[in-house]
C-alpha cells in the first residue's frame, strides 16, 4: 500500500479514536454538564449518610448546584461531616436545610438543599445547621412493626 494511503487511514483512525473519547466525555460522562469552576465550600453534619459518596450531586429544586467534596467522621460528635462544594452562581440563605435523598428505588444518593428565608447567605467555610439524615430502611421497618404492636395492644 502507498505511503499516502497509509497516512490517510492512520489519520482517520486517530480522529475516530479521539472522536470516541470526546463522545464518552460529553455524551456519556458529565463533562458537558455542570462545571463548577468557581465554588465555595460549606459543611453539614449528618447522623447517618447511608450510601452517600464523594462527588455525589448536590441538588436544589432538582437542579445540580454542586458536588460532595469530602466525607469525614467527626469523632467528637460521632457524626459524619460532609463538605459540599457549591457553585458560586447559586447563593443559599444561612438557614438552608440539607437532606440526603435517593433518586429512584435503586438510584444513587444525593444531597437536596432547600433554601430558607434568611437574608444572610452561606459563605466559604459556613455550616448548614438544619440537616436530615438518610432514611435507613431497617429503622423504618422497626418503627412500623413497633407501632403495629402498640396498636394491637391498645385494642385489647
Amino acid at each position: 500500500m502507498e505511503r499516502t494511503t497509509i497516512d490517510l487511514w492512520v489519520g482517520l483512525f486517530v480522529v475516530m479514536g479521539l472522536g470516541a473519547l470526546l463522545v464518552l466525555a460529553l455524551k456519556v460522562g458529565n463533562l458537558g454538564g455542570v462545571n463548577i469552576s468557581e465554588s465555595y465550600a460549606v459543611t453539614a453534619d449528618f447522623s447517618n449518610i447511608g450510601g452517600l459518596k464523594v462527588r455525589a450531586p448536590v441538588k436544589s429544586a432538582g437542579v445540580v448546584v454542586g458536588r460532595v467534596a469530602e466525607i469525614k467522621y467527626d469523632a467528637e460528635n460521632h457524626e459524619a461531616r460532609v463538605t459540599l462544594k457549591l457553585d458560586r452562581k447559586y447563593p443559599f440563605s444561612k438557614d438552608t436545610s440539607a437532606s440526603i435523598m435517593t433518586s429512584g428505588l435503586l438510584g444513587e444518593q444525593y444531597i437536596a438543599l432547600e433554601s430558607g428565608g434568611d437574608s444572610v447567605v452561606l459563605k466559604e467555610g459556613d455550616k448548614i445547621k438544619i440537616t436530615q439524615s438518610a432514611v435507613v430502611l431497617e429503622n423504618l421497618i422497626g418503627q412500623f412493626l413497633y407501632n403495629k404492636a402498640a396498636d394491637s395492644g391498645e385494642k385489647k
Partner: protein
Amino acid sequence: MPSRIVKAVRRVGARVVDGVWRFGVASRFLFLTLAYSATSFRRFHLIIKEIFSTGVLSLIIILVSGLFVGMVLGMQGYDTLQRYGASESLGVMVALSLVRELGPVVAALLFASRAGSAITAEIGLMKATEQLSAMEMMAVNPIARVVAPRFWAGVISMPLLAAMFSAMGVFGGYLVGVKLIGVDEGSFWSQMQNAVDFQQDIVNGVIKSFVFGVAVTAIALFEGYDAPPTAEGVSGATTRTVVTSSLAILALDFVLTAFMFRGEV
C-alpha cells in the same frame, strides 16, 4: 519415593528460576526498547506504518465486538433491572460496565489476539529467516528499526481502540434499550450523565487501556524476538503471546481496579 519428591521439588525450583530469569531478560528487552525509542520518533513514518498494521487493521473486530457487547449488556441489563422497577437505570449500567471494565479489558484481549499474535509471528519469522541478523550485519539496530516502532504503535493504538469499543458499546446498549425495548430516551442519557464521572470513570478507563497496551505489545515483541527460529518455535511463541497477554491483562485489571476504584465498589 523420597527421590521422586526431591525430583518434583527440583522441577518446581527449576521452573521458578527459569521464570525469574525470563522476566529479567524481558525487562532488559523492554528497557532497551525504551532506550531506542527516540530514534523511532525521529523517523515517525515507521510508527505510522505500524499503527496501520496494529490499529487500523484491528478496527473492524473492535467496532463489531463493541456493538454486540453493548447490545447484550442492554438486553441482559434490562432483564435484571426491570424486575426491580429500575429499567431507567439501564444507561448507567451499560456505560459504567463498558467505560470502567469491559471497554479496556475486552478491547485489550481482542488486541492481543489480533495484533499481538501478528507482531509475534512477524518478528519470529524475521528472526527465522535471519532478517534481524542481516540488519545487524548492516549496522542497523533491529531494536531501533523493528521493535521500538511496533511498541509505540501498540501503545498509541490501544487507548484509541478501547475508546472506540466503549463508544460503540454505549451505542449498542442505546439501540437495544431505547430503540428496541422502549426505555425512555431522556432517562437513559440523563441518568448515565449523572452517574458517569469523567475523571473517575473515563480517564481511569483510558489509563487502564494504556497500561494494557504497554503490557500486550511488550509481551508480543519479546515473544517474537525470543522465539526459536523454526516454524514450531514461531507458532509456539504466537500461542504464548495470546496466553501470557490475556493473563497479564486480567491480572493487571484486578490490580488497577483495586487502586482506582477503592472504596467505590
